[in-house]
């Protein structure tokens, strides 16, 4: 079964796309989110916070409530600002994270005894961007549809497709998937 929202381990994401992406990536890496059971409580409940601002609101409360907590969010256009906001929220609970993200991701001790918190800022703990920018790195270099997806997305935009300039990569990825 899927983990219930009361599951002891939790992974916070900003939105629905991220939720599905993470669940699929977990499955690719041998972790089936639907294999949660009373005897297998290690699988985290992946929680869609619905926005970055709600994710940053709930991160401190979650750190006090879960022995294992994962946090995944997008860097967007200003990576230091987003990182600092999460750092400030956690520091109020006496949890300290580095001033800037580690390219390998970070796992730190939480405030509860024996607890751990893992944090990853998309796409790669360094650059601007979002989860989609990480996903395109998984597309093989010689993929024939990827260049075509760019063309098609540009054409759609010129015909009035309603996505923001900032979301071009997201739109191109969805076009590629289609």
């Amino acid at each position, binding site marked *: 079964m899927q983990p219930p*929202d*009361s599951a002891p381990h*939790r992974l916070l994401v900003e939105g629905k796309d991220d939720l599905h992406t993470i669940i699929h990536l977990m499955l690719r890496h041998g972790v089936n989110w639907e294999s949660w059971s009373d005897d297998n409580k290690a699988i985290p409940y992946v*929680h869609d*916070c619905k926005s970055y601002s*709600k994710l940053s*609101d*709930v991160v*401190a*409360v*979650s750190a*006090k*409530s*879960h022995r294992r907590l994962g946090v995944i969010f997008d860097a967007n256009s200003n990576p230091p600002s987003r990182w600092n906001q999460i750092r400030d929220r956690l520091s109020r609970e006496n949890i300290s994270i580095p001033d800037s993200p580690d390219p390998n991701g970070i796992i730190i001790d939480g405030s*509860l*005894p024996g607890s751990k918190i893992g944090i990853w800022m998309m796409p790669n703990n360094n650059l601007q961007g979002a989860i989609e920018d990480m996903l395109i790195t998984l597309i093989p270099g010689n993929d024939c549809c990827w260049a075509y997806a760019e063309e098609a997305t540009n054409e759609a935009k010129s015909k009035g497709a309603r996505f923001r300039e900032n979301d071009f990569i997201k739109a191109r990825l969805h076009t590629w998937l289609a």
Partner: protein
Amino acid sequence: MLTSLHLENYRAFSNLKIDDLSHVNIFVGKNNCGKTSILEAVEMLLTGSDPSAIIRSPARRGEIAVSNSERRGKKYEINHLFHGHLIDYESRFKIEGIQEGKSVFLSCEVVFPQESSDLASDLFENDDEVEPLFILNIESSERGEPIGLPMSASGNVFYESIWRSSLKEKLEIKPINFVRSESIDRFQISEYWDSIALTDKQDRLEEILRIIEPGLDKIAFLSGSRSRVGSYGVVAKLKNIEARVPLGSLGDGIKHILVTILAAVNSTGGTVLIDEIDTGLHYSVMTNVWKILIETAKRLNIQIFATTHSLDCLRSLAWLHRQNPSLCETVRLHRVEKESDRTVAYSSEEVEIAIEQLVEMR
């Protein structure tokens, strides 16, 4: 107001620190994690100047052994207050706190008697529990002299010894009342009632009860033999019904609220301890119940300690915070965990965020 608490070797806890206590404190946690023991520890600490402080919780829990002596009264099993239920020479538990910036404590230690007269030598005679005898040494910041009570090897103390030592010195204790979910002491509530009958407080109480039973007109307490049957001698008059009905006919929730509110108005400047605050209450009335309790605690300068299991109870608190965040500033939720030596505190704002984002705080 108590701002922190530290329990050592007491009941379920070998060591537990509780910080960030506020005016209204709600304790949550799994079954048997010791929530009620925390309420009892507060009670024992704050009534520490009276030797009967140590038997209030054993009396409620039925930790009483069969006594062969009518004269000496009940035999309380004090050993259960010690972590692990067993006592030996030098066993000790301690409850410490910070109250108005000052350190307060109560400790109980098992010692050998220094003089044979300490034992009131005939005390355990003709009883199935004889030698060796210990002395239970009770020290409290609220009392100058320690109290020594004769105690059997297994940890029993006779009521008579407690009663005798309480005669020595009577010290004033600020009002403190314990509200239980299961049985309610009829005599206690009629005493509470006496203090509010035909005052504004009675009107206010009826107003509060109408949150749960909108059809309620008036309530009254019966004296005499009739009061020994039914619902603690409390009867209600409903607006559209001619006959009066026992309060118990209106459900457990209204009874629980009646006792809770009566306990609160009788604890001005003191403390109210409420075990399972949401007993018998539907979630739809719980937001109003919180509102009343928080307001009453503010108005009468009362510190409240309550326990709950219920998610609905926390949801209603989150809802109240959304409507009235400044009222809820004085509320703290504390999670008690068996395996941890600290409780985790949440502000009411955090409770609201956690409820919205489905974070399990219990």
